[in-house]
């Protein structure tokens, strides 16, 4: 399966198992979503459980809060992560705090799916990576898969979770892994080990990182599309890096991070979101607090720049092989 099919399969499995699961969002019903992630679900489960919504993100999330309070498990889709901002108040002030402020009387068990990230010539309103905004908010979990297998298992775990989960889907790798080189032809998931996706129910637990590549020379912390770009850069350079695919940012697998950095003594962080106050800053602080005496070089961050995503220069903005290589060279120098 490719990542779209894996996500579709997770929704299908969960709708089949739990009548409380409902799917809603702009164009998700009859059409099956602009990326086809919800294709066929309305036909199978009916319009009461899979339906198109008006174009109002604050409405979609506010309604999902109410549905969750009733006892459903809504899986709202925000068509592009760039359009999650109108819904921010409902997510941050309401969904994230409902359990806390009602001392557990009401919960908000929703999973907000949203394609995010760049590399598709989407310009500044179809490319952003807003995960840092959500990791900063108490009460929401943030999940980002990097493979079809994880996408399905993590999405199932998110839907079964009783807390609100933001599930960001790296749209650049929906159809195949991306090695970071714009000029090489797109690859497909076919034949990739992580594209072997069971058709039934399984869970990839939230809060557990995956060792995408074991190594000794340095630790690279990354997630989403960047896992593939890093894997490829590391292979091209022939360095013995350990690559940790974080999979969930909140809750974070701090043990896996500590274990790896203590082993390699060097840490590099790669994400596509802008640099300042990005999640990399949190990771860097955590590693510094917990592994300072094991570090043999300063922590390196490779991130998007502190500019909006530029349409024609997106390949220069994107933390691709050139920038990753320079950072690895620097961190391995001393």
């Amino acid at each position, binding site marked *: 399966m490719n990542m779209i099919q894996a996500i579709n399969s997770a929704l299908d499995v969960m709708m089949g198992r739990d*009548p409380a699961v409902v799917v809603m969002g702009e164009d998700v019903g009859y059409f099956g979503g602009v990326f086809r992630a919800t294709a066929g679900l309305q036909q199978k489960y009916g319009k009461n459980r899979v*339906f198109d919504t008006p174009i109002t993100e604050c409405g979609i999330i506010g309604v999902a809060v109410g549905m969750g309070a009733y006892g459903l498990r809504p899986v709202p889709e925000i068509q592009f992560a760039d359009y999650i901002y109108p819904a921010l108040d409902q997510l941050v002030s309401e969904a994230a705090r409902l359990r806390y402020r009602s001392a557990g009387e009401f919960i908000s068990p929703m999973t907000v799916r949203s394609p995010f990230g760049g590399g598709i010539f989407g310009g500044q309103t179809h490319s952003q990576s807003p995960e840092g905004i959500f990791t900063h908010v108490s009460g929401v979990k943030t999940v980002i898969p990097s493979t079809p297998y994880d996408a399905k298992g993590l999405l199932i775990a998110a839907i079964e979770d009783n807390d609100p989960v933001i599930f960001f889907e790296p749209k650049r790798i929906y159809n195949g892994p991306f090695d970071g080189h714009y000029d090489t032809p797109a690859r497909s998931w076919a034949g990739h080990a992580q594209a072997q996706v069971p058709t039934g129910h399984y869970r990839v637990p939230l809060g557990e990182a995956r060792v995408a590549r074991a190594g000794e020379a340095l630790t690279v912390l990354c997630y989403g599309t960047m896992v593939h770009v890093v894997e490829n850069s590391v292979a091209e350079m022939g360095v013995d890096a350990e690559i940790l695919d974080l999979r969930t940012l909140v809750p974070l697998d701090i043990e896996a991070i500590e274990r790896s950095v203590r082993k390699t003594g060097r840490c590099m962080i790669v994400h596509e979101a802008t640099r300042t106050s990005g999640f990399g800053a949190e990771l860097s602080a955590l590693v510094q607090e917990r592994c300072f005496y094991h570090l043999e070089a300063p922590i390196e961050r490779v991130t998007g720049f502190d500019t909006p995503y530029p349409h024609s220069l997106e390949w220069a903005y994107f933390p691709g092989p050139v920038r990753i290589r320079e950072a690895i060279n620097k961190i391995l120098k001393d």
Partner: protein
Amino acid sequence: MSDRIDSDAGREEAGRNLPPLRLHVPEPKFRPGDSADFSDFDIPPAGAQARPDETAQPAGMRDLAYGLVRVLDEEGAAVGPWDPKLPPEMLLKMLRNMALTRAFDARMFRAQRQGKTSFYMKSTGEEAVSIGAAAALASDDMCFPSYRQQGILIARGWPIVDMMNQIYSNKGDRLKGRQLPIMYSARDAGFFSISGNLTTQYPQAVGWAMASAARGDTRIAATWCGEGSTAEGDFHSACTFASVYRAPVIMNVVNNQWAISSFSGFAGAEATTFAARAIGYGIAGLRVDGNDALAVYAATRWAADRARANAGPTLIEHFTYRVEGHSTSDDPGAYRSADEASHWPLGDPIARLRKHCIALGIWDEERHAAMDRELAEMVRDAAREAEKNGILGHGLHHPMESMFEDVFEEMPWHLREQQQKMLDEWKAAGL
């Protein structure tokens, strides 16, 4: 499969003898494979709507929010109180601008299919909405468009090579290749920078209009969004501000029946009209035949005069049809009947104005065909001109370091550092 959602919550308390509640999820009339039939459409005859004084109270004109202002009748004659009685040169100018918009769309759509840019959006079938409005506004009134009003720039005489440079994100693009194609910005043309985030321009237009009023200016603002976008919170905030401060603004809703795959029912069309949104806010609301360039002109002119007379805002619903896909990324065949567009009962806006001009004796088929040929050549030449500045992804773009400009007025240390680092990295990589 049960059509109801099962849940344990609320079950115990539910009255056993009461009928189960039902959720209504709207469904369009026609889907792929269906034959479209619009015969049950209530289309009032041209000329039937009354035309109140521009300064009349909104409460007295509710009918206009539910009717359809139409000027051009089936024979191509202009009839009724809304006939703007435009001089021949103006009619021909509007006809030409609509045809130019269509030719431009055709060329740029093809350019996208040829891989010269990433994305394009046509306004086919909706040309009268922007051309009619642009003709009725003063050239220095400020427009806050959405992505389907390229016709405004064309009507205001903005160079089409400049628009194409933007679409190609090339080195001639005044926006430095930063925006998605079609997201123009042309301050000198009174054309506000387009956002990809729907309806954000609505409160902005109201704010501009309020500022103009507060300063004692004479310029007004106009804004456009699709019917689907009226669901956004920004739309409703804008209406409240416009009403409260009687802002000199025209709020246009382009009801082209579809928001990507969602028909207008998902924005509330089953319950009421979009023009009727105005009523709850105490704003004047007009519902207009959006495929009738003269009706669009007349309604816009009425609303503009109203705003200039300090009589407040107007909400205009343009009832039209999106003939083509939503964008180059869309496949309308997957969600709507294939023959919907050809059955659209309000016709093609260009054909209708052409018929009117011919009926007036100021135009004929030969001249029209010659004009279409001339415009096709003109956009072809312009596209070649623009392509000399580069097409997307072929290297002729703004310098990489320009990425860091305009984030702030002055570049702070961290951006300067990032800029230098990027250049060093690319240099070290031998690129």
